[in-house]
C-alpha cells in the first residue's frame, strides 16, 4: 500500500484486507470502528452493549470482505446498517421490546474544569436520557442525522426506509427531544434571558 492511507477509499481498503494486507484492517478499524462505536453508544446507551455491537459488526465486515463487490455500495453504509440491526436485536432480546429508561450516563470528560464538566456532562447525560426515551427507530434516525451528520438518503439506505420516512422520524424525534429537555432547562443551567 504505497499511497497515503487517507487517499485509499474504504472500498479499496476492504479489497486489500481480503487479499491479505494486514495494515488495511487497522486503517478500516480506525476509520469505521470508532464511528460505529459512537453510534452504538448513543443508540444502546450502555458501554458494554455498544462494545459488543461494535465488535460483532466489525467481525461481520471482516467475514464479508472476500465477497465485497467494490463500487456497488458504501462500506460505511453497510456497516451502519449491520450495527443498527444488531442494536435492535439486542434491545428486543434484552427487554422484550421495551426501551430501558435507566441508562448509565457517560462520565464527564476529566480534561474540562470541574464546573464546566459538571454542567456539560449533565446536559449530555440529559440528551442521552432523552434519546433513550425515543422509540427505537426515531432514536436511530436522530443519531444518524444529527450526531453522525449523514444525509437523509444515506440514512434511508441504512434503515431500509424511504427518505420521507427518515424526514418524518428525525422531525418527530427532534421535537420529542426538545420537549423532554425543556422540562429540565433550569436544572441544566439554561437561562431564560
Amino acid at each position, binding site marked *: 500500500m504505497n499511497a497515503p492511507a487517507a487517499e485509499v477509499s474504504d472500498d479499496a481498503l476492504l479489497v486489500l*484486507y*481480503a487479499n*491479505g494486507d*494486514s495494515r488495511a*484492517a*487497522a486503517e478500516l*478499524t*480506525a476509520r469505521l*470502528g*470508532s*464511528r460505529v*462505536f*459512537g453510534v452504538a*453508544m*448513543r443508540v444502546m446507551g450502555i458501554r458494554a452493549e455498544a*462494545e459488543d455491537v*461494535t*465488535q460483532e459488526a*466489525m*467481525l461481520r465486515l*471482516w*467475514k464479508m*470482505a*472476500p465477497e465485497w463487490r467494490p463500487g456497488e455500495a458504501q462500506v460505511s453504509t453497510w456497516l451502519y446498517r449491520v450495527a443498527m440491526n444488531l442494536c435492535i436485536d439486542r434491545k428486543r432480546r434484552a427487554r422484550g421490546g421495551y426501551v430501558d429508561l435507566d441508562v448509565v450516563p*457517560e462520565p464527564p*470528560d476529566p480534561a474540562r474544569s470541574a464546573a464546566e464538566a459538571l454542567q*456539560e456532562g449533565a*446536559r*449530555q447525560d440529559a*440528551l442521552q436520557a432523552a434519546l433513550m426515551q425515543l422509540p427505537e427507530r426515531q432514536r436511530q434516525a436522530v443519531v444518524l442525522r*444529527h*450526531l453522525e*451528520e449523514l444525509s437523509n438518503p444515506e440514512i434511508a439506505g441504512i434503515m431500509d426506509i424511504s427518505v420521507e420516512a427518515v424526514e418524518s422520524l428525525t422531525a418527530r424525534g*427532534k421535537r420529542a*427531544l*426538545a*420537549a423532554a*429537555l*425543556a422540562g429540565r*432547562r433550569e436544572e441544566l443551567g*439554561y437561562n431564560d434571558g
Partner: protein
Amino acid sequence: MMADTDKALQELDDLFAVARSEPPALPDRLNAAILADAVRAQAGFQAAAPAQAPRQPLWRELIEALGGWPALGGLAAASAAGLWIGVAPPSFVPDPMALAGYEDSSTAVPYDSYDMAVVLSEDLQ
C-alpha cells in the same frame, strides 16, 4: 410559545454540536479485539484459498508424480525397447529360455526318456 420551541430546538442543536465534537474514542481493548478478529478471519481466507483451486484429473496427477511429460516419454521408449528385446532378442543377448535350463522342444529330455522307457519295457516282456 413559538419562541420557547425555537429556543429549545436551538439548545438541542447546541447539544448535538457538543456531542459531535466529542465522539467517544474506541477503547484500546476493543480496538485490539477487533484487530484480532480481523487477523483470524484473514487467516481463514488464506487457508480456504487452495481448496478453491480446480482439482486436476487423476491421470494428470499420475503423470506429474512420474515427473511430467518428458519422463513419461522416456518411460514409454524404455517399455517399448524392453518388449522388443523380449520378442526378438538380438544375437548378442543370451536366450533367456536357455539360461533357465530349457531347450527347444525337439530335443526335450523327458520325451527321449519316455521312448527309452518304452523300449526297455518291451525288451523285458
